[in-house]
């Protein structure tokens, strides 16, 4: 009984993470566009922009990239060389999927671990921070997307390894098996 409840709780937590991720991504990208566009107007019309805008925008690029990479795990859209995969039988494809995605999960977990150390360095001595920050926000806060992003990616790769692929690998000779491409 408890196991079922735990499983349900886990599933709803995942749904919430997806939802938060999607909205966070939307909001951050809209800020990116508005701030970057506004900065040009300010600079060209009034001769001066917001001084903290540039480092803030550069940080936003990393945040949106990490969230985008996290979303790419869910849709199986990470760039990979899938030449061989096309020629494997279905069973072998499943095994290949589990092996490669578990490998990615381990790498992401390792990166999450090392990123915690990286963020920890700037947390302990903010004065010698590796990155230049934005006034009012400590560098370690800006950098925290690395451990969070890689940690969630590790978790999601682990789950994806045992889920069916989001889109079947296209085969050379049998177009009937290819699902219509969803226009992105």
């Amino acid at each position, binding site marked *: 009984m408890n196991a079922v409840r735990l499983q349900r709780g886990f599933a709803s937590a995942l749904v919430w993470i997806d939802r938060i991720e999607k909205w966070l991504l939307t909001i951050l990208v809209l800020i990116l*566009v508005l701030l970057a566009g506004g900065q040009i107007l300010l600079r060209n019309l009034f001769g001066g922009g917001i001084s903290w805008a540039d480092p803030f925008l550069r940080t936003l*690029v990393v945040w949106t*990239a990490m969230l985008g990479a996290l979303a790419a795990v869910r849709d199986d859209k990470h*760039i990979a060389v899938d030449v061989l995969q096309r020629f494997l039988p279905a069973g072998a494809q499943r095994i290949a999927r589990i092996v490669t995605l578990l490998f990615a999960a381990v790498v992401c977990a390792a990166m999450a671990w090392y990123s915690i150390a990286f963020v920890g360095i700037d947390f302990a001595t903010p004065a010698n921070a590796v990155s230049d920050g934005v006034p009012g926000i400590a560098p370690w806060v800006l950098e925290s997307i690395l451990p969070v992003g890689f940690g969630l990616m590790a978790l999601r790769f682990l789950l994806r390894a045992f889920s069916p692929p989001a889109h079947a690998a296209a085969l050379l000779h049998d*177009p009937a098996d290819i699902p219509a491409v969803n*226009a992105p």
Partner: protein
Amino acid sequence: MTLLIAGALLLLAALGAPLFALIAAIALLGFGASGQPGTAVAIEFYRLADMPALIAIPLFTLAGYLLAESQAPRRLVRLTNALFGWLPGGLAIVSICACAFFTAFTGATGVTLVALGAVLYPAMRQARYEERFSLGLLTSAGSLGLLLAPSMPLILYGVVAQQFHTTPPVAIDALFKAGLLPSLLMIVLLSAYSAWHSRGLPRPERAARGELWAAIKDAAWELPLPFVILIGIYAHFLAPSEAAAATTLYVLIVTVLIRREIGFAELPRVIREAMLLVGAILIVLGFSLALTNWLIDADVPESLFGWLQASISSKLGFLLVLNAFLLVFGMLLEGFPAIIILVPLVLPIALHYGVDPVHLGIIFLANLQIGIFLPPAGMNLFIASARFHRPATTIIRACLPFYAILLLCVLIITYWPWLSLVLVR
């Protein structure tokens, strides 16, 4: 031990492991072997936040995806049709121009193929173009705009190449200028072939003046875009990242607030699609920043050069080998990751052989552009196969004359640097 690890990684790569994870693993192992902690890889990765040019990539990509989701492709086709539709092979030329324009914006050739293929393929078939010709033309035109500003691969090449502080430096606006004539060469040669091929087809009437005017009015909101970018960048009013910001803000306002072709409810989905591509590319870039540093510390490009020089002494010989190498890797890796991974290895070697780094960028992209739809593994073959519901083998056969034309273009671009450099230097 090293061989064992290399073998394991190669196997994982062949089985389809995410590229970024492979690069990250190599970087972690490499740093570890030279006594540096893994934290250094995280620090190198975070250098993504120190690259001001990078901001153009999410911005232009979003602008491209917004345009692709809106009715802009349809309006673009209508306008180019009113302009060029009456020429022999008019609709084919329309397809070539529209695809080039669109890929220049999105940098994502597959998106162009899907978005414009849906409009253009039925139109070409209706105008009685052969099926085979139409398939080949659209599949090859999908990647045509890669060399045109503001394409994302050009920006990416600039960002990666700037790591090397070459003389002369690789400014992104220099790349934008360098890509102009080579793009025109490809567009003109493909158009000429199309006109010749479809000389037997009945030519549609020249569009009435009313239709041209209506098409212009229809596309009135999109028309300023090329001018903002071209004039802004080519005349040095705007840095590439500023042009990206202006373009994206404008496109966002037009598609969502003025034309309302993308609703607020749909916006998160479109943004997610665009950022998914950006994230997948930038995460590879982040780890390759770490790897590049390690490669340079370990003198890998230098030893590669020494090894190459033993068998290839001339610049021309080097370029020939480079062409073959890039075609194969462009096919296996697609455009973006190929740039990120190969530029750090190839650029230092090419400099030794006296190749201009800006010219090298154009050579790179011209080759990758073909590699993207080259058999047996070029991604666009499979996208075209799915889009047009034809077997990939049919698409490959349909593309044969287009491979020939574009290969000719690549050879001209490679061995005639003037074409790329006259507007730059």
